């Protein structure tokens, strides 16, 4: 059961094992023992083993016999190791160490004949020594191709004194022995092992798993004190099904002398018994073990190293997170096989279901980052103010296919009106399809329908834009953002309802109005290099007019900008200072054109990078 305590961290969670055997000459199964193991705090494991059958009994017949008297004065020698406790810890991915304690009892009993008056009785004459030993072991796997192990066995911590002088010759040695071994993992299903000890014993074994959950093994045991040197051979097979593991094995000793149950006393006195199970007197046996793994019966293959969120989530841009990562999870393959892993991310109430990322392949021990995406539902648009929510990251790895690891992280969801200050993000506030926007534009244009009849269709967009802007002349108020807010942007329906706002509110609102009637727009984002705190944003719209007809818009080329539309065709674009809209279109146009000419052309802001034109489509 528990050989090297350093192997204990392999316990999954709760492991129960029962072993029984049929020693040669026995009439049936004998209960060998039971062991219970428990994994704690991910890296630690404890085990307790009770093995009453780990016992050697010798009966030396008395040389004196009394006929007609029913008692025995035979000498009985018993060696037992019924109890063991162990602790192991996985220090690193490659190294585990363990320490175990074993109790051993050595008892000798030889009843003494007593004559009392005319009767003959026996008086007990026995001695017992109980000792505790410690075994210290380590397992080190520096490579996925081999594992080294070492064990110091039998360090006496409670020697238990000595037997009485009459029985001292039956004391077992308390010398410490040292064992070392190497296991070669030729393939994930084929392993070779070789071990040796300072007491002259060793073993060579092979384990092969022809199919998943089935293994066969063969072992040769050696002892320098035995003749022949290879003193035993064993074969075994194991089969696992879910939490159950069934093991069967057969050990056959090459030298059957002293293993039949009858030995010479001198053989006992001169024998070196290092381990009770593999002593020179142990018989051939068939063993069967049944192990049940309860609790967390899955072997962990993937581990979450960490979760990193890119930053707060702005509800206005929620749709982008379906294809632009909002964070990443770092994963590590903690198994010995190549796995396929995928992750999913979920925020309760703001998402209908977890959003999965693409699968990645990880080699044993490999770490990688998987991006996290999120498909939010409409509820995120109603988040009024910044809040901290729990984001759940779940990672699964094949071949199990079920959830292997999950982690929770904190996610900051900004308010629906919060803006990160980037012109590229402002376009997510543009809502040309908003019912309030659509109604406003249709109502305004309907009242001015007759005006458009006087203009050529080629100028229709320009004139409609003029009408829309003029409709708000004198009806809008410039208002700064609320105090203590991050940059606060109103949605167009809010600006229409409030009839007030700052430059980004008006820009978003008029962009939405224009876009709702099919006019292309662009933001002009100005961040003065010497006064970045005085950044400003306004808009320009596409009149749709070919530059060769630009005189119909204005005789002064500084009042417009020639740039390509979405299809690559060059058209005349009109800059408009949206905060001046309340003064009418002409005033807003003049101010916008002047701003653009000064900043973009005269001061070369566009080429120097502090003026950006961001198309809203």
């Amino acid at each position, binding site marked *: 059961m528990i050989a090297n305590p350093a192997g204990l961290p392999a316990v999954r969670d709760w492991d129960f094992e029962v072993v029984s055997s049929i020693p040669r000459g026995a009439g049936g199964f004998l209960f060998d023992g039971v062991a219970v193991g428990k994994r704690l705090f991910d890296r630690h494991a404890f085990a307790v083993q009770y093995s009453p059958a780990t016992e050697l009994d010798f009966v030396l017949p008395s040389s004196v016999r009394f006929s007609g008297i029913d008692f025995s004065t035979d000498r009985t020698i018993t060696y037992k190791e019924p109890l063991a406790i162990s602790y192991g810890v996985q220090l690193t991915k490659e190294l585990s160490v363990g320490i175990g304690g074993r109790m051993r009892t050595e008892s000798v009993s030889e009843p003494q004949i007593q004559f009392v008056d005319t009767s003959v009785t026996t008086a007990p004459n026995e001695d017992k020594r109980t000792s505790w030993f410690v075994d210290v072991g380590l397992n080190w796997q520096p490579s996925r191709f081999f594992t080294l192990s070492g064990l110091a066995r039998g360090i006496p911590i409670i020697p238990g004194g000595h037997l009485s002088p009459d029985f001292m010759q039956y004391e077992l040695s308390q010398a410490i022995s040292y064992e070392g071994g190497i296991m070669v993992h030729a393939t994930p299903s084929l392993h070779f092992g070789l071990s040796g000890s300072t007491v002259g014993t060793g073993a060579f074994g092979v384990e092969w798993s022809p199919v998943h959950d089935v293994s066969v093994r063969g072992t040769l045991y050696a002892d320098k004190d035995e003749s022949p040197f290879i003193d035993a051979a064993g074969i075994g097979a194991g089969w696992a099904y879910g939490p159950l593991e069934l093991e069967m094995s057969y050990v056959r000793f090459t030298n059957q002398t002293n293993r039949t149950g009858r030995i010479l006393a001198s053989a006992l006195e001169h024998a070196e018994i290092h381990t009770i199970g593999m002593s020179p007197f142990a018989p051939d046996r068939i063993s069967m073990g049944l192990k049940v793994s309860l609790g967390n019966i899955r072997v962990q293959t993937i581990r979450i190293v960490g979760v990193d969120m890119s930053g707060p989530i702005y509800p206005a841009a929620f749709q*982008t997170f*379906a*294809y*632009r990562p909002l964070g990443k999870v770092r994963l590590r393959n903690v198994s010995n096989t190549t796995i396929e892993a995928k992750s999913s991310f979920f925020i309760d109430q703001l998402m209908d279901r977890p959003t999965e990322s693409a699968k990645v392949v990880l080699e044993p021990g490999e770490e990688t980052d998987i991006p996290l995406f999120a498909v939010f539902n409409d509820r995120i648009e109603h988040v009024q103010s910044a809040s901290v929510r729990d984001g759940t990251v779940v990672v699964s790895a094949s071949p199990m296919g079920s959830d292997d690891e999950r982690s929770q992280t904190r996610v900051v969801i900004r308010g629906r009106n919060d803006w990160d200050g980037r012109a*590229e993000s402002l*376009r997510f506030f543009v809502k*040309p*399809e908003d019912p309030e926007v659509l109604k406003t534009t249709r109502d305004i244009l309907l009242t001015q329908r007759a005006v458009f009849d006087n203009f*050529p*269709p*080629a*100028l*229709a967009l320009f004139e409609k834009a003029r009408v829309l802007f003029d409709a708000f002349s004198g009806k809008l108020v410039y208002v700064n953002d609320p105090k203590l807010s991050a940059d606060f942007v109103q949605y167009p329906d809010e600006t229409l309802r409030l009839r007030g706002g700052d430059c980004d509110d008006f820009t978003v609102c008029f962009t939405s109005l224009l*876009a*709702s009637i*099919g006019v*292309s727009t*662009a933001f002009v984002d100005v961040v003065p*290099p010497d006064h970045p705190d005085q950044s400003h944003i306004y808009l320009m719209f596409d009149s749709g*007019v*070919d*530059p*060769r*007809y*630009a*005189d*119909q818009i*204005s*005789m*002064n*080329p*500084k*009042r417009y900008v*020639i*740039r*390509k539309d*979405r299809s*690559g065709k*060059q058209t005349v674009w009109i800059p408009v200072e949206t905060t001046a809209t309340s003064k009418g279109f002409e005033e807003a146009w*003049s101010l916008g*054109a*002047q701003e653009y*000419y*000064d900043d973009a*052309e*005269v*001061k*070369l802001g*566009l*080429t*120097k*990078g*502090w003026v*950006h*034109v*961001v*198309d*809203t*489509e």
Partner: protein
Amino acid sequence: MKFFSIIGAMVAFAGITAAQGISVQKIQGDVQVRHGVTEQWSAIAAGDVLKPDDSMRTGRNGLAVILAMKSGVEKRITLPSEVIVDMADVRDLTPEELMLKLTMERVRSSPYKSPEELSAPNAGVVHGANETPGPALPENDPAAGTMQWNGARVLFENGFYPTCALKGMELYRLYPETARKYTNRILVAQSLERANLRGEALSEYNTILGLDGLTQAEQSTVRQEINKLQTH
């Protein structure tokens, strides 16, 4: 954009920024000024100081002399008759600034779009476009175009090659017919060449070879320029 920003920072204080005023030394005949983005032309007098966003126009009998900075030195520039010049063009631009402006004209600024971003259709739909043909719009006043080309030549003759080239390209768009005229295209090509933009100049010369109606002499001139650029 990072490249542009770095170049922009390097040339932030290079050359004339046109922030300095341009003084009017002499006025003769019909000379007017248009301030900023206003539509009206107004009178001007000697001694006035023009701002970078002003434009100057000389009539049929007009003539003006202005004093501007060129390569850090004051330069008298004569505007003959029938010329329109923007004061923002009376300045030096480095080859890098010219290259950036040419590039910006070619690249349409676009919003952030990652390679994985889905291309979802937006509300700017195509369906329902007004198909009513309507009366054609009149093209821009060719006389104004001629005066602006004359202004471009003033820039060239006074060594403002980068702004001359940029003005020419702007005039191609406003007055497409002028883009088919040999003298105009040669002016732009030579401006690019003298602004040390050989590749751009070569491209312009090759375009000229494709114009209809070139004389033998004109073709020969262009081929010589091409050979000269290619061998250097």
